[in-house]
């Protein structure tokens, strides 16, 4: 059987099984085992489980459940609302400050919790009603939160980046650092858009007021006294200290990424025990069981994706596809654009974790041959997949928003989100034009990478 036919058959069967609605993990596993049984030596079937175990038993991968635990501990308490309240009090005076406060709160929370949907629901459950109460249009409010939440997979510690580091065999510390510059850039762009759009809605409300006498709450002035502002700090500062402390432990060389995850989750549990009095078994059980549910689901997808790519590479499908892409002799940027377009399309249907593990063996060799820095590409690919979290048809964050604000029409949410998708794509262009936005920080902290070119 020719390579082309085998590759097409493999792709077709994968699509068929996935779209049957079988859970992603089991679809990947059964397609892998099926092709093993037909096209590979019989003995390979005997080592399936050993393969999966050996791939999964990496301590770097297994830091994922612990990062999720850290996020769940912070996300299932009032920490999100308190962080949000503090941001609101400190930025209330700036025009559009409430929207900007929401963006900043999302970014900080994302950096602490490391999960996009968790960020959306933690900040959004307080932020969306507040923004709407203050006269922001529902779509705008929802867009800010949906987009702000995606920062969770870009700012460290990000599950997506952990997987990319494993799949691309790149340094996790370097990847985490490389995500910070673009993350800050995105926060700035989101904040600028929030301010600009606020001015637009404000002017519209003012015109409306002058014409009809319809006073929108958008026009009301608000004020927080200094005492109110400082009163909010004690609940928020410990989490910010935790955030920086964990970073220092990681980059100061005190702890490996997995130890950071363990330490971070314990400290998060300790903080919620002290600040919110969440320490009884019946308080902790929901946090732990939510962590187990999410991490088991994720780790199964990861383990089975690894089996899937093992089969794909044993049958030389990934290598042939990589060679085929190289043979197209696309120009550097055409190659990048084509690959990112495919990532976007896959993002319609698949969670980021499986996109990374399934495509890394196909996409990374051609990119490396074209002279791209794979750490830099990891950041770019992450931003593109982030955009996938908020664009239809399956943008996950949209549904999280729909859950916390059921009365906002999905169409409104999507219209509110589109400007943010544009900003993300703009960021991808900026990082492509100026790669140092991503690479400067890791080069500064960890020394420049020895380039092969």
């Amino acid at each position, binding site marked *: 059987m020719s390579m082309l036919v085998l590759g097409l058959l493999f792709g077709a069967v994968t699509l068929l099984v996935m779209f049957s609605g079988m859970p992603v993990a089991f679809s990947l596993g059964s397609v892998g085992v099926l092709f093993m049984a037909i096209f590979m030596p019989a003995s390979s079937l005997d080592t399936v489980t050993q393969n999966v175990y050996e791939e999964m038993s990496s301590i770097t991968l297994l830091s994922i459940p612990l990062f999720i635990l850290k996020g769940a501990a912070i996300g299932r308490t009032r920490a999100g609302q308190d962080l949000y309240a503090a941001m609101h009090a400190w930025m209330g005076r700036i025009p559009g400050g409430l929207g900007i406060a929401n963006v900043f709160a999302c970014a900080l929370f994302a950096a602490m919790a490391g999960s996009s949907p968790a960020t959306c629901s933690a900040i959004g459950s307080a932020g969306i009603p507040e923004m709407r109460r203050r006269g922001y249009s529902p779509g705008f409010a929802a867009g800010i939160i949906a987009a702000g939440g995606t920062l969770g997979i870009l700012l460290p510690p990000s599950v997506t980046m952990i997987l990319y580091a494993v799949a691309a065999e790149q340094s996790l510390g370097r990847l985490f650092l490389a995500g910070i510059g673009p993350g800050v850039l995105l926060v700035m762009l989101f904040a600028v858009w929030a301010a600009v759009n606020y001015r637009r809605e404000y002017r519209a409300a003012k015109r409306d007021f002058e014409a009809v006498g319809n006073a929108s709450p958008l026009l009301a002035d608000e004020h927080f006294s200094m005492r109110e502002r400082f009163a909010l700090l004690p609940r928020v500062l410990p989490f910010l200290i935790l955030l920086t402390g964990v970073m220092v432990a990681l980059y100061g060389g005190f702890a490996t990424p997995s130890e950071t995850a363990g330490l971070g989750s314990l400290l998060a549990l300790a903080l919620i025990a002290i600040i919110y009095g969440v320490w009884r078994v019946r308080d902790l059980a929901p946090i732990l069981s939510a962590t187990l549910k999410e991490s088991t*689901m994720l780790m199964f997808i990861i383990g089975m994706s690894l089996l899937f790519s093992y089969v794909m590479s044993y049958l030389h499908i990934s290598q042939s596809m990589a060679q085929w892409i190289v043979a197209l002799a696309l120009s550097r940027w055409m190659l990048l654009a084509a690959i990112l377009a495919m990532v976007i399309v896959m993002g319609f249907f698949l969670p980021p974790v499986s996109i990374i593990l399934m495509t890394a063996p196909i996409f990374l060799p051609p990119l490396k041959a074209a002279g791209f820095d794979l750490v830099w590409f990891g950041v770019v690919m992450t931003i593109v997949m982030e955009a996938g979290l908020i664009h239809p048809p399956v943008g996950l964050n949209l549904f999280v928003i729909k859950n916390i604000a059921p009365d906002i029409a999905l169409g409104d949410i999507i219209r509110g989100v589109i400007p943010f998708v544009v900003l993300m794509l703009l960021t991808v262009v900026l990082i492509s034009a100026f790669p140092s936005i991503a690479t400067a920080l890791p080069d500064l902290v960890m020394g420049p990478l020895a380039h092969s070119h």
Partner: protein
Amino acid sequence: MSVAERVELPPVPVGLAAAPAGAGIHQHVDPSTPRWLLPLAHALVVVNRGVMVLGMIALVAAALILASSVVTRYFLHASTDWQDEAAVFCLVGATFLCSAFVQAIRGHVGIEAVSSLLPERVNRVRILLVDVGCLAFCAFFAWKSCTLLHEAWSEGQTTSSSWAPPLWIPYLLMSAGMLLLSVQLLVQCAVSANRLRLPRGAR
């Protein structure tokens, strides 16, 4: 009407936020379970609850082990050769053991885009076929895990680190988890098959 407004909401999207709120570790026996399977279904609920408790303990234990490893290395200058592996055993064990519970609440995500397009009866057949497919895969995986466990036990295999713990420990957790998952899927297959006989519109 724009495309956006026609998008159907999937029942359970990925993610913490979307996990059934406050569901904790409780689950219910599906009312469509065939009567002869009820004792097994009830037993599974109990076993899954116990296993989730074990998983929670393992999760906290892994965090404690890894945190202590930082402390011992930097303050006591002791070597930390066993911590990583011990944490791996805890987390791999938790992952495999809890998979049956996650399946019981249908928490393993799939692409559900097709289901909203199919007529109800066809969709019930699809669900049954998917469940049977999952069962076939998981049963195969469970069987191969057990042979792996047997090999590791009888040959006394250990990991290749200096601590060299026996490999049957993680393999046992993997086999037990996959067996439990297979039993869970078996019950769910029976439920899905039973649903085929329900009148239209019944749940």
